[in-house]
């Protein structure tokens, strides 16, 4: 048992554990819609696009971690609505437009951060996360904003479901389709900001799609898919952190690899299971 408890004697491990579980649940629930609506590329692009915002916050505040959350949040919401608006223009294909913007913004972020001498370490935290560096204050931000996300998903459950399954039905029922679409983009944006410290921008898309995709393989009902996805994501957070502690590997990568392992197992089980 000491195997399990030993890491938890450190306060940063306890906070990291709680953060990983909470972020996992939020990403898993929002990620269900990302998977069902085929928005994985959008989620990946959005996460990368916020890097310049974080970089500017980093340069202005001199690297104060807790303030970076707000910079990430602001940039993510603007980027989400911006990408959403660009997607409606027909001049070039949607994925091409998103690709151009996200790579450009990502490069801008790296350029800005590279102006600081000690940039390598900080940059790697933004890219791959630093869940063990979560402060008590950051944890509270995760709790508050994570709750807002989950409550919003619950409040508009039937609207999001209807819109995702059949947009034409949503339109003929006169649901506020544009508002709901933007609300969903906003939810993904806040999720990205909340998850920043846990997995970082480069691995974010894994938390959004991998647990939800694993759940999709195993169930055919949406509430069950959300629940299973949340379970896989929080388990990935916990197991990933133990792996990180004992094998001395980067925490964000360990969490994502665990989530990927769950997916591979579910996928293999689906294949060999007698139909």
């Amino acid at each position, binding site marked *: 048992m000491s195997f399990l408890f030993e890491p938890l004697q450190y306060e940063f491990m306890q906070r990291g554990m709680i953060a990983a579980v909470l972020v996992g649940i939020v990403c898993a629930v929002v990620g269900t819609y990302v998977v*069902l609506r085929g928005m994985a590329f959008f989620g990946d692009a959005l996460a990368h696009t916020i890097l310049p915002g974080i970089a500017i916050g980093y340069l202005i505040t001199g690297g104060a971690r807790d303030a970076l959350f707000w910079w990430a949040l602001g940039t993510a919401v603007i980027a989400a609505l911006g990408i959403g608006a660009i997607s409606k223009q027909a001049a070039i294909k949607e994925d091409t437009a998103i690709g151009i913007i996200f790579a450009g913004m990502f490069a801008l972020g790296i350029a800005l951060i590279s102006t600081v001498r000690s940039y390598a370490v900080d940059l790697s935290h933004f890219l791959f996360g630093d869940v063990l560096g979560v402060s008590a204050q950051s944890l509270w931000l995760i709790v508050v904003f994570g709750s807002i996300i989950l409550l919003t998903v619950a*409040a*508009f459950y*039937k*609207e999001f*479901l*209807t819109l*995702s*399954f*059949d947009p*034409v*039905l*949503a*339109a*003929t*029922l*006169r*649901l506020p389709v544009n508002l709901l679409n933007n609300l969903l983009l906003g939810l993904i944006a806040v999720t990205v900001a909340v998850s920043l410290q846990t997995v970082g921008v480069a691995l974010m898309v894994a938390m959004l799609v991998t647990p939800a995709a694993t759940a*999709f393989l195993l*169930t*055919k*009902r*949406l509430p*069950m*898919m959300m629940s299973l996805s949340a379970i896989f994501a929080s388990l990935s957070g916990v197991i990933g952190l133990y792996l990180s502690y004992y094998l001395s590997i980067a925490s964000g990568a360990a969490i994502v690899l665990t989530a990927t392992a769950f997916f591979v197992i579910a996928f293999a089980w689906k294949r060999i299971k007698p139909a």
Partner: protein
Amino acid sequence: MYPHSNHQKDKPILDVRHVSVRYGGRAALENIIFHLHVGERIAVVGPNGAGKSTLFKVISGVLPPNSGEVTISGSQPTAHSCIAYIPQRSQVDWNFPVSVADVVMMGRSAKLGPLNWPKKRDWDFVNHALETVEIVNLANRQISQLSGGQQQRMFIARALAQEAELMLMDEPLTGLDTPAQEGLLDLLDTLREQKVTVMVATHDLEQAAKHFDRIMLLNKKIVAFGDPLKVLHSENLLHAYGGRFRTVEGTDGVLTVDDSCCDEGEHNSIYD
């Protein structure tokens, strides 16, 4: 909360006046004029690309026309949540993680309003709708497990749960075997008793002639509209289809045709 205009009883359920739609520079619909009365059953027939789906989208208020106007019982389509658009089966994501009852309950979203969860009354609506279309035993099935005919029935149940008064069905008979088609057409008879007005887009002229009050022959313009026997004579069909059809002598003296052109691969459903 969501808009729902009162119906003016003296106005037709659907009035389409001088509607034109163009995609880019290409005309999809030109100067469409017609109106329908409550409880009528119309078949919309025409070759692929004739504008059937476009017409339905304009009527349902999802696509605003470039010119002209549509009114539903006296007011704009966007003021009504009583129009049901039943999609072609090929356009539905059948792997979406929902049950039949879930899909039918979606029809209640507007009546429920924001922030409300389904109540007993809504579940009663769903159950009753499923009973009407005779698939109440399939309520908890995942939607990928349905046959083609059952899929159509589910969407009709959803329209009933929506309390639809105008039902627009896009190619509901395509890809179904004959018994399933007949079952669906019988079901439309039941809907007539409920005063639901139905427009069905179809390729099958023989069935259109047999089962519908009026036939609209559409090819961007209305080529002919009226009594099936009068509409389906060869001159009209030539206008609508150009040379791309074969004539077959139908059972009741009606000239029927097969649209010998492209089927758009709509017979590819693995669920039939």
